[in-house]
């Protein structure tokens, strides 16, 4: 799928980072954008939005990205349950990165995202690439 035709859902509770990320996505030509402030709201709206890709923060209240992804994978609609997810976080600790990668995510980007890395991860995700972890 052409990145510029993708509908992307951003889940980020920090205003500066959300603005930066949405601006970066627009610079990449991605204009079909939705944004929510936490995983709980995003989960409630996911069947309406039907995104092709989700980019989510990890640490949010009341529902963070990891809990959001676990709920998403249990959604009855298989297409929604398998939407590729990229994590974006200032938390680069090995334990958090490993926990998310074990959930089968399409990428993990450390904040703030470099636009070239963001573009590469989005292209990979839309091609069905899943990041794997090797011990």
């Amino acid at each position, binding site marked *: 799928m052409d990145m510029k035709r993708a509908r992307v859902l951003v889940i980020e509770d*920090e*205003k500066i980072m959300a603005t930066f990320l949405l*601006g*970066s996505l627009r610079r990449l030509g991605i204009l079909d954008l939705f944004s929510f402030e936490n995983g709980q709201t995003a989960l409630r709206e996911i069947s309406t939005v039907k995104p092709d890709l989700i980019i989510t923060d990890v*640490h949010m209240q009341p529902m963070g990205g990891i809990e959001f992804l676990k709920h998403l994978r249990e959604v009855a609609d298989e297409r929604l349950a398998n939407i590729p997810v990229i994590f974006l976080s*200032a*938390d680069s600790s090995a334990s958090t990165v490993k926990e998310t990668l074990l959930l089968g995510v399409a990428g993990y980007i450390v*904040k*703030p995202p470099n636009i070239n890395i963001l573009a590469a991860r989005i292209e990979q995700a839309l091609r069905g690439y899943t990041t794997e972890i090797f011990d």
Partner: protein
Amino acid sequence: MPQTPMQPEQKLLDTELALSQVGDEGVLHDMLGMLQESLARDVPDISQLLARGEVDSANRLLHAIKGFIPIFCNAGLCSEVERVELMSKPPHSAELPVAYAALRPRLEQLQAEVVAHLSGSASA
């Protein structure tokens, strides 16, 4: 005895770096407004949270600052924020209040630079 001349403080806000990352002057202007609001609110809040022993709450604010500050600032301040944020993670470092007290004036300097930049661009 000759006095050592005062060295001008190094500027913390790097608008060229920020613009190269954000890519749009209008968006950057909006983000600087958000940065000013965030620093004005969160920098004193972190001190109060630490004084009350609410380190996890202080960590959430420091974590957010750590995430966005590389958009606007040079590596020196980013490293300082990263170091203090790491100290606020469990197991919390006993040195955290002292470390944050040293960091706080730098964040206040950044806030002042943001205010000055926004005032300058408003009057230009």
